[in-house]
């Protein structure tokens, strides 16, 4: 048995701090807008970081996210937002792909691989307080099913009748990338023809904030100028800005997509994984994990480093991580470095944790579609010299045939995806 089938992206769906759908998000991203703002949804005045990138709620026709479009209010009460975002992004992606399984055969060949880094932290927080105050009899029967990470995929599968593989990834900030890579492999091996894959996250709440603040991971020096806080590769960067949302793709066996005349965004040609085995939150200083991960993805793709046009960086705007990733990429590229561009879209949308990898893979696909690279905002003074074009401040027109997306997570878990443009 050989895993030789080609896998393509035929649908995309986004819920991000820049909008409630993919096109609004992409338009604002290319325009150089930032989703960062002072938090007013919960108490932050006793925390060192007071800013985040939150999903803008409001009318759909303004490009915002309207929960009632995606889930009945009585259902919304039962789940954390990460499930709501996943249902929205997955429904958008299936609609975009024009894939609505109706026959039993279509249903059993379509699966889900949806993960989250953290899951229902907000609901766990509230439930713990409730049990402490009023006792266990007041706890809703929907507490557990509304917080479990795989229930994002569970809800999506129930909503759309997807009866194929039903799996979930939990690898912190690499979740979204691992979900796409693992789902692609299921299709390559013939376990499914179509997979809805991606990550979702809604940890922007008081408990999540306090937790990441305690890790000293968040930016604290830009509370008065939130849109300037996420500044990957800049010398004044001081931590990441939390984001929330979801990114889902419809992955499909190439033959299956062609047979039904589906539009193809890109082919997933490479997937690499590695472990740092170094530290629970810090990346290994040598960049060895990132280097091996990117190298493995390129090897699987069967391409040379010089074939790369664009890299969507993990680049979270932390003092340590950005330069380690940059160094690892330079080592991968060698003499080809001057011909490659890399930007960090976290400069605009913040760090979506478990959703970051899939949202950023979608940005790679859109960069291919529109031949334009999203910028790295706030990159006023790069902290190191590099021949790699970091696309500072403004989007840059460039044809993209091959793109790579990096994701690195707590625990030392790394994933890289390589995508290639498919000519119509």
């Amino acid at each position, binding site marked *: 048995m050989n895993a030789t089938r080609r896998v393509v992206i035929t649908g995309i769906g986004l819920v991000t701090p820049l909008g409630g759908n993919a096109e609004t998000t992409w338009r604002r991203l290319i325009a150089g807008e930032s989703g960062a703002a002072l938090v007013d949804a919960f108490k932050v005045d006793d925390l060192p970081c007071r800013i985040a990138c939150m999903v803008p709620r409001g009318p759909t026709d303004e490009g915002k996210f309207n929960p009632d479009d995606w889930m*009945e*209010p*009585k*259902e919304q009460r039962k789940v954390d937002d990460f499930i709501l975002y996943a249902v929205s992004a997955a429904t958008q992606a299936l609609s975009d792909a024009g894939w609505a399984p109706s026959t039993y055969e279509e249903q059993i060949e379509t699966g889900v691989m949806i993960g989250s880094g953290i899951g229902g932290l907000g609901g766990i927080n509230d439930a713990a307080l409730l049990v402490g105050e009023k006792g266990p*009899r*007041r706890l*809703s*029967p*929907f507490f557990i*099913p509304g917080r479990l990470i795989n229930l994002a995929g569970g809800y999506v599968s129930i909503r759309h009748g997807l009866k194929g593989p039903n799996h979930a990834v939990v690898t912190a900030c690499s979740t979204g990338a691992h979900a796409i890579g693992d789902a692609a492999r299921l299709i390559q091996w013939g376990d499914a023809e179509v997979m809805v894959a991606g990550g979702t996250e809604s940890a922007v709440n008081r408990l999540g904030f306090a937790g990441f603040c305690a890790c000293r991971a968040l930016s604290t020096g830009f509370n008065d100028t939130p849109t300037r806080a996420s500044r990957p590769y800049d010398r004044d960067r001081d931590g990441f800005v939390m984001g929330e949302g979801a990114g889902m793709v419809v992955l499909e066996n190439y033959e299956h997509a062609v047979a039904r005349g589906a539009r193809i965004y890109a082919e997933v040609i490479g997937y690499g994984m590695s472990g740092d085995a170094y530290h629970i939150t810090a990346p290994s200083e040598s960049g060895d994990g990132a280097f091996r991960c990117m190298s493995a993805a390129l090897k699987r793709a069967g391409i040379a480093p010089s074939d790369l046009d664009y890299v969507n960086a993990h680049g979270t705007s932390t003092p340590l991580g950005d330069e380690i990733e940059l160094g690892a990429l330079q080592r991968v590229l060698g003499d080809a470095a001057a011909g490659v561009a890399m930007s960090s879209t976290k400069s605009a949308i913040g760090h979506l944790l478990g959703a970051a990898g899939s949202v950023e893979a979608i940005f790679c696909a859109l960069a291919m579609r529109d031949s334009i690279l999203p910028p790295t905002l706030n990159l006023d003074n790069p902290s190191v010299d590099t021949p790699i074009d970091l696309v500072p401040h403004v989007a840059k027109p460039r044809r993209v045939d091959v793109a790579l997306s990096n994701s690195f997570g707590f625990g030392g878990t790394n994933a890289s995806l390589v995508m290639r443009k498919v000519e119509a």
Partner: protein
Amino acid sequence: MSDVEERVKKIVVEHLGVEPDKVVDNANFIDDLGADSLDTVELVMAFEEEFGVEIPDDAAETIVTVGDAVRFLEKNKKS
């Protein structure tokens, strides 16, 4: 409509997301109002909260229609 009946119906409408005119005395939560087993657990909890009573599991199992709830709470309510 009694005070208890009104409060029960309001809770059912809110929790199950159904039209008020469907919430009649003999409406079965599961068969007529689209609730699943977890919804009924949550409904009973909402009744407990609203009326300040504790509804033991064996009593909760006998509350399957709107009227069952109204009659139980008329008899046992504390607030």
